[in-house]
């Protein structure tokens, strides 16, 4: 059975978008290859690594595990929506100041996931941060700097 092109209407980073996708596309493929938002990364493509993490209707999801067709009428936020123009978000600044990235492939997923945590829990404990981010894998920086960056963004003292 051949897949066909479909039209999807949704909101991406606050803007109404209408895009054409292949019916078999994941949201990750649609974001990167159809819409040109390459912030979300393909790591494992099976839901283990979190590099493709985006916010869908207020919850973080792995965009490799969402069909583009499912996004009709939904509200998507990606890492590209975090900064205001040239002004990085407090969380992004904290990642820079804590050197919470090295190769950077996992960073967009960590940022989107941590932003969602701070929205619903502005003062998380270290345990809560680690538990929330368990589905985001980093293979180079290590997790301590990432945890410290989230703590800094939450206004906590970081040693």
């Amino acid at each position, binding site marked *: *059975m*051949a*897949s*066909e092109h*479909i039209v999807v209407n949704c909101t991406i980073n606050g803007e109404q978008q209408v895009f054409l996708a292949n*019916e*078999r*596309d*994941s949201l990750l493929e649609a974001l990167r290859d159809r819409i040109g938002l390459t912030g979300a990364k393909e790591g494992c*493509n*099976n*839901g*283990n690594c*979190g590099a493709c*993490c985006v916010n*869908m209707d207020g*919850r*973080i*999801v*792995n965009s*490799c*595990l*969402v*069909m583009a*067709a*499912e996004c*009709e009428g939904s509200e998507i936020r990606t890492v590209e929506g975090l900064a205001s123009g040239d002004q990085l978000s407090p969380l992004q600044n904290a990642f820079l100041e804590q050197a919470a990235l090295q190769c950077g492939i996992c960073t967009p997923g960590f940022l989107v*996931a941590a932003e*969602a*945590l701070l929205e619903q829990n502005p003062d998380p404990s270290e345990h809560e941060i680690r*538990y*929330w*981010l*368990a*589905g*985001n894998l980093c293979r180079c920086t290590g997790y301590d700097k990432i945890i410290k960056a989230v703590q800094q963004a939450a206004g906590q003292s970081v040693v």
Partner: protein
Amino acid sequence: MQAVKYARAGSVEEAVSLLQDGGDGARPLAGGTDVIVQARERTRDIDLFVDIKHIPEVVGISHGDDGSLTIGAATPCYQIYGDETIAANFPILVDSTSLIGGTAIQGRASLGGNLCNSSPAADGIPSLIVLEAQVEIAGPNGRRTVAVEDFCTAPGRNVLESGEFAVSLHFPAPAEGSGARFLRFIPRNEMDIAVTNAATQLRLDGDGNVTWARVSVGAVAPTPLLVSEAADAIVGQPLSEETIAAAAAASSAAAIPITDMRGSIRQRVHLAGVLTERTIRQAAERAA
């Protein structure tokens, strides 16, 4: 990805019709955290996803006046562990749903999907079994209800016939003095597939006697097991080191696991006993 098509069903009848017309290649799409991977990695032949998440009956939580519970089959995990009444009356469902995947998986994955994926290592199914959950199924011949312990038939296989899908899960009200606990063993703290898992629900009367129990262990057989011998070992008397040890031995005896990348036969047989013991103790703490 296989050349998979997508259809959004607005009603149970429409979903049944789409699944029936789609034949063997049609699969219901709830959270997609298993079936999208299976379509991509071609571990199942899938050419049509029928999205059931926009059918009101299939998503959501309702509490009966009698304390019973109904969860739409596609209700995502985060809604289940975020429900205060579930946390108070069915905390074992919080145990399971907060362990399935990480936060991003829990935003999509559902207990109905976990059941229908029918993995021997599913982290939802032992809890459903000890809670005496019934799954309501819709299909071309109407509705039917199946006890969860009778649902899975082999790894990745279950009693669903062509055109059928799971609509909702029904749980009886926990009886007075009930407590239930689910535990999973994995080598790290989160985000892994069970080496072995287990669930226990039991009831204590005012004198501390166990009056009723159910024990289930997973990842030790082709399907999650209901181990009636483990329950029999503790029912009819107060919990003691001896009865708990007998229940653990019964679970180990019922285990017929395989050796794979996650664990050996020997380790899993041992874990079936250890987790049975721990879930009995912790279920009793919750019952008290």
